[in-house]
């Protein structure tokens, strides 16, 4: 496990050196290079940590029993990671407005995703208030 982590860190450092070399002369290709380093690092992280995380999620599912809540949490984690990936890449190159739009899109998606949970909480609160 730790060997893979050091491999990912080495790839990120080499990518950072290449990006800084290209940044003064070719900022456009440097942007694409930073995007590609991010994509490769995410792929390697997925490949390394997929099976341990899957076993953890299966432990959660067997202990809680109600599968819908942990599913919503996992989907929210995925959406927020992707929004943060997009926003950070934009913010690195000074595009703060686009980064904020990416994060806003992620927040809206998570809000829509959590509507069933909120409505079930409100429904049970209403039933409690009738008693």
């Amino acid at each position, binding site marked *: 496990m730790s060997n893979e982590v050091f491999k990912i860190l080495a*790839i990120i450092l*080499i*990518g950072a050196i*290449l990006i800084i*070399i*290209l940044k003064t*002369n*070719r900022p*456009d*290709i*440097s942007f*694409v*290079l930073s*995007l*590609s*380093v991010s*994509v*490769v690092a*995410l*792929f*390697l992280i*997925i*490949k390394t940590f*997929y099976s341990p995380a899957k076993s953890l999620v299966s432990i959660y599912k067997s202990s809680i029993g109600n599968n819908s809540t942990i*599913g919503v949490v*996992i*989907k929210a*984690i*995925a*959406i927020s*990671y*992707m929004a943060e990936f997009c926003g950070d890449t934009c913010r690195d190159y000074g595009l703060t407005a686009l980064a904020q739009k990416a994060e806003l899109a992620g927040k809206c998606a998570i809000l829509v995703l959590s509507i069933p949970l909120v409505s079930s909480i409100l429904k049970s609160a209403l039933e409690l208030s009738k008693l």
Partner: protein
Amino acid sequence: MNVDFIFKIAAIGIIVTVLNLLLVRFGREEQAMLTTLAGLVVVLLMIVKSIAELFSEIKGIFGL
């Protein structure tokens, strides 16, 4: 897995920079700009496929 395309993109960037400098030095500004554009398009074509692959993989893993 696909680590080598980082180095491909960096090499394309360095080659395009050198070609751009040479063409500007020889007074061919239009061809220098076209070289820059061609390098950018090649690099974008390389990255777009892998971004789509990443997003579909994440969708598949997290069950979105």
